């Protein structure tokens, strides 16, 4: 594929990531099952990860791994910073999911339900 074709295809990543984020947000506000809310949080996270890693893409660029001797002003590689950001974001996303699931387990033990409509002792 030529560079311009690849460049055009990257739009698919952006559409996909926005789509994932939208699905995730929709799940969080429309679903009453707290398990599904946690899944929605996860989907938002994946969408954002896809978005970040797409931002760093340069059509035709190589992997950003060089020794200092190989670097010259002509080297062309994808942006490494978003990849580092994505890794961090993935780790944080995993932590969020773990914490949320542990809370869901405890809530299930305490309330005996996963329905957000019944988990509302604190209100008003």
């Amino acid at each position, binding site marked *: 594929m030529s560079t311009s074709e690849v460049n055009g295809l990257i739009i698919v990543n952006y559409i996909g990531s926005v789509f994932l984020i939208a699905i995730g947000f929709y799940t969080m506000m429309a679903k009453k099952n707290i398990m599904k809310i946690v899944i929605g949080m996860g989907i*938002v*996270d994946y969408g954002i990860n896809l978005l970040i890693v797409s931002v760093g893409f340069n059509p035709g660029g190589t992997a950003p791994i060089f020794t200092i001797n190989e670097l010259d002003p002509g080297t062309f590689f994808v942006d490494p*910073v978003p990849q580092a950001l994505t890794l*961090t974001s993935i780790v944080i996303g995993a932590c969020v999911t773990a914490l949320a699931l542990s*809370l869901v387990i405890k*809530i299930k033990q305490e309330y005996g339900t996963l329905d957000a409509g019944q*988990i509302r002792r604190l209100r*008003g």
Partner: protein
Amino acid sequence: MIQHFPILAIMVLFLGAFLTVLCGKNKVLRNIVVFAAMLASSVFIAFLIKPIMIDGEVITYWLGNWSPVADYAIGICLVVDQLNLFFAILVSVAVLLAGVFSFKYMSRDDTLEKYFTLFLMLSGGVMGLVLSGDLFNMFIMVEILTFAAVALTAFRNRSEGALEAAFKYLVIGVIGSSCILIGTTILYSQFHTLNLAQLSVLLHNNLQPATILAFTLLLTGFAVKAFVVPFHPVEADANAAAPSSVSVIISCVLTKAGIYGIIRIVYFLFRSMNLAPLQFILVLIGTLSMFIGVTMALAQKDFKRLLAFHSISQVGYVMTAIGLATALGVTGGLYHAINHTLFKGLLFLCAGAVFYATGTTNLDKLGGLAKRMPQTAALFLIGAFSISGLPPFNGFVSKWLIYQATYEKAVEFGNIGYAFVTIIALVVSVMTLASFIKVSQSVFFGQLPDEFKEVRETPVPMRIPMWIMAALCVGAGLLPQYMMRYLINPAVYAVMNVGNYIGSVMGPGYAEKIAGQTVEAYSSEFALAGYWSPISWLALFAIIICAFFIVSLSGGKLSKKIHSDSPSGLDPKYDTFFSGEANEHSQVGGSDLFWGFKHNLRHYFDFMHNAHSGVISDYALWAFCFLSFMIVYLFIIV
């Protein structure tokens, strides 16, 4: 030497967090480690006061010495200008006092090593957020502090609603963090840098659709962290369920971290506060928070939940003042931020002391504790007077500044709307006082229930941090000129003039070179209305009396609708009582002192009660509505 202090102030907290786990069951060693970490962090921050606040330097620290190459900032940096240091001081004071309080307060719980680990990570996260000079690092720190705060909210997982509150807080917190991360990503895709100073220069006068979207997302993200109005229910839940020492941090420190983020975004990163519609929307959000917070507080039956709603209301004052975009407004906002930390910290510690002594925070069950706990009662009254803005205490000074700022804004722009904000601020202050009269009546005065006859005053280690907070409240009220000179004015100058920050991070002359223009210097001069000027006082009292009249007149008209034979199954206490013996004994509970007022406005209160339904999907829906509204609004105005 001094340039290493910012990173050390963050590192000692995280180091303390991990050393705490290693101490195992040795309580004394653990407490020493925790105390040493908090104290060391505060000392490092205190050493920064002289060079930054007094000499006006800005300290930049590049981690791993990755300083900018060819005007491009790749490395991570910590920047401490006067605004950062202002919030760092606020954080370290609150963390130190709440930490000392929790040694004794938490001593009846088990697995305390985990509590202190999380507590120090929370503190380190906030400290990292306010000292970071890098957008992505701010996101990381936001995540760390959200995790720690969520876990600490659920720490007493046997207590009513703790798990539920933690889950709701996590969901809403994740919405906020996601917004911040998407905004950061969009900015990176446009400018290929994450450094705040560099972004600020590149973004100046460069509002394209992508940057407006990023601005909205970042603003919404930090608004979630500040718990302003559409996001406020989770703060009330979390504060009510968390241990009191954690409530202090959530209410006093995390909301301020959100306010810090908003100031950084609107005043520094995008420098967009010259847009009048943006000022309007920030003031509107602040005013709504003020009003909804205080009216929800009037209807509460739980001591800590009531304090949590007041915290939303007070943060509304800060937000309103910040949104005015005048030097006087920012002064009032920052002054109120530090005052809110002091008095709300004190009030939450008092609630903790009451809980420690009696085991409950239900206003209907408590009463007459002033006889058994005189010092706590006195401390509570100091806090209550401060938050209600009675003259010798600190709340008065900052609220006065905010009234003056909103009124001057109305005069200056000929916009009557801002004068309404002044009136609402006054009415809210009156309602705050009313609400605290209710609390003091139902907790500390009135009848002492039999089961609390043997209650004892809280131990000395818990009273010391409370007395320190009370002393700071009085001090900040009696000596406003020193607070102004050493804390507030430098911070306001830093908010209004971003040139020093950019020059310190990217090297002098960077902004001129890239943007081809100098960073304008805004004036932070303002004339202060005299605190004791009789005419101003007269005007204030006239407005307060008018507010009372409006409330009482509306009450008088509506009350005619109540008939003695009101069927409708209302509580008999709403009936008109003529004479003789009532068949059913009707008791006005401690939490119900203003039942007449609440009854007259029952449609509003019922609506608000039903709106705060406790269902997490609803709160998430509010958050997304707010986000969508902000996106549409900002795209229309720019």
